[in-house]
């Protein structure tokens, strides 16, 4: 008896988030089912779920985007609810509608809220009309003929974005206004390619901006709370790598203002379930960027400081229950940092890496959480996002959290596929990061952090020892030589 109106939850996702959702669902007494493409055979989510339904597609990604197949899978296992995770179908209003029409609870917002916030231009207008701050901009749809002129009039620097975009895809910074026409053409091509929608908008680019977002949660009765902010300014090419809470950029007064604004925006949208309102912050001002109508990758830092399980709250709201907490009951304690473990080479410009997980020993201990998306023997390909795992740490304050994170990174053994683990440690050790003086362009301006330092002679000696001892041919040659000859020296070479 779970107390939920459904007894089985289907997870329409993969990787670490599928496993993370399964964990909470199991704790709440729900049965779990997961859909899985063949490429995810052997993943920890597939191993942990009570039921696994195979899905197919031209590519792995296509399978997880196939709403009809997923709804059929839910019917097959008798799932009364579908959790979409993040990415894939999580912000697809049509899917949310189809799920509801099938009599299945969608663990997320209403299709209307997804539609509103998914159209970046409508969302922006909605937020601006209600008195919340947005950055100066030119929107192509307002008048396509004058779009270029209006964009040019804003003056450099500018940010060109696809209207239907997200996750940094197709975004371009323009510092030389003469390049605006060609950047617009390129962004349009990428928008068409990734989102099937070439419409654009251009907004003022805040130099050295900080990315600050606020976790919100609403229920069907119209209650909305915020769960404080997260700062995600450490990015490479608009992709977050490190997220933390609280933000070191905000005073208590600004924190209150930005969190209240986020809750206000969610309230105005009659927002239900978990969402994140993203802001750009610079020079003491913040502007609404967009609202993500789903659980975020970085939600665990919020869970670490508030002690609230956001997936549980999502499931309760999806079950029609009111929010299990009031605003006054939500407190933030200590400091939490999340590090995204990617299959990529920082030294080669963060290009993806591939391989097979030969050994995996994630760190543990007090204040350390690892949300894993991989298991030993699993093949890492470029078929999916390169994020393999998330390391989340909690400490009494920011320096304590950084120290704990560095210790945990050192303990993170992952062999068989090159990852960014060593790079993350160099990043945490950087004086700018320690000082909390990081903006979204910081990492791109410091490529030296990506470069791999030389191995010091002491480590080299130990690695050479391992190489020699682990290689049978090298050992056998030593074994074949009488000890006396070996003692004379290396004459025989």
């Amino acid at each position, binding site marked *: 008896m779970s107390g939920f109106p459904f007894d089985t939850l289907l997870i329409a996702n993969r990787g670490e988030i599928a496993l993370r959702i399964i964990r909470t669902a199991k704790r709440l007494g729900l049965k779990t089912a997961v859909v899985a493409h063949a490429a995810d055979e052997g993943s920890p989510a597939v191993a942990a779920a009570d039921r696994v339904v195979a899905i197919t597609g031209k590519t792995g990604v296509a399978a997880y985007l196939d709403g009809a197949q997923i709804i059929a899978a839910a019917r097959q296992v008798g799932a009364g609810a579908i959790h979409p995770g993040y990415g894939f179908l999580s912000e697809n209003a049509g899917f949310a509608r189809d799920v509801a029409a099938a009599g299945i609870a969608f663990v997320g917002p209403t299709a209307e809220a997804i539609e509103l916030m998914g159209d970046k231009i409508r969302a922006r207008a909605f937020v601006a009309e209600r008195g919340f701050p947005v950055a100066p901009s030119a929107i192509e749809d307002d008048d396509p003929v004058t779009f270029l002129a209006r964009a040019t009039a804003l003056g450099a620097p500018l940010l060109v974005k696809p209207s239907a975009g997200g*996750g940094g*895809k197709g975004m371009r910074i323009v510092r030389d206004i003469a390049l605006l026409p060609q950047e617009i053409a390129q962004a349009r091509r990428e928008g068409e390619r990734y989102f099937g929608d070439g419409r654009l908008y251009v907004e003022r680019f805040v130099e050295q901006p900080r990315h600050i977002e606020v976790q919100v949660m609403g229920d069907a009765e119209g209650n909305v709370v915020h769960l404080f902010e997260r700062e995600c300014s450490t990015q490479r090419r608009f992709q977050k790598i490190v997220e933390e809470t609280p933000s070191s950029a905000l005073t208590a007064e600004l924190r209150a203002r930005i969190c209240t604004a986020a809750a206000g925006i969610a309230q105005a949208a009659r927002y239900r379930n978990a969402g994140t309102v993203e802001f750009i912050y610079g020079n003491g001002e913040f502007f609404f960027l967009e609202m993500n109508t789903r659980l975020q990758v970085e939600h665990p830092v919020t869970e670490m400081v508030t002690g609230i399980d956001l997936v549980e709250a999502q499931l309760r709201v999806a079950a029609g229950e009111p929010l299990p907490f009031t605003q006054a009951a939500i407190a933030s304690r200590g400091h939490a940092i999340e590090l995204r473990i990617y299959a990529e080479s920082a030294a080669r410009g963060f*290009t993806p890496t591939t391989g*097979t997980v030969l050994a995996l020993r994630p760190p543990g201990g007090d204040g350390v959480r690892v949300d894993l998306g991989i298991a030993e023997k699993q093949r890492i390909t470029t078929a999916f996002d390169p994020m393999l795992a998330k390391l989340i740490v909690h400490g009494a304050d920011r320096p304590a959290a950084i120290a704990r994170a560095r210790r945990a990174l050192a303990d993170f053994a992952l062999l068989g596929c090159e990852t960014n683990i060593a790079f993350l440690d160099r990043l945490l050790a950087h004086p700018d990061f320690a000082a909390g003086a990081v903006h979204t362009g910081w990492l791109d301006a410091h490529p030296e952090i990506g470069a791999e330092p030389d191995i010091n002679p002491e480590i080299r000696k*130990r*690695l050479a020892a391992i190489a020699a001892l682990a290689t049978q041919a090298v050992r056998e040659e030593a074994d074949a030589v009488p000890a006396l000859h070996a003692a004379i020296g290396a004459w025989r070479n």
Partner: protein
Amino acid sequence: MRHAFDIGGTETEVWLSRDGAGYRLHGDAGEARIGLAAGRLDVDGVGEPVLVVLDGETIHVHLGGANYVLRHKDPARRFADEDDGGAGDAARAPMPGTVVRIDVAVGQPVALGDPLLVIESMKLETTIRAWHGGTVAALHVAPGQSFDRDALLVTLSAGGG
């Protein structure tokens, strides 16, 4: 015979001799009395935990808070590789990805800078252009195909345009 390993991009020659029940390390990285057993590396009597996984000629290591890849350079191939220089007039994949589109056909003459194919990695499209004028000698990939880093993409020959 000496063996060489690629350790952090540097070729390191090593050999062993017996030292009582254990071994002694010799070569570029220095000398030491060493042992490796039960997840523990001993160097001159000081031990520390280590995780080692062998994968063909590649040795994966977690040691002292970091992950390393060591490559055994096969003695037979070690010097042959260096003669490989002029053989491949080809573009290799700078990173793993997928082929979006191919703009040329085998046998087609191309001029310096002509687009040959478009690949996609990390959500970004990159156009591979002719690095000299000539003829498309071979296409090693097809549209939609995914590839690993260093995979052959297209080969040019000097003739033609």
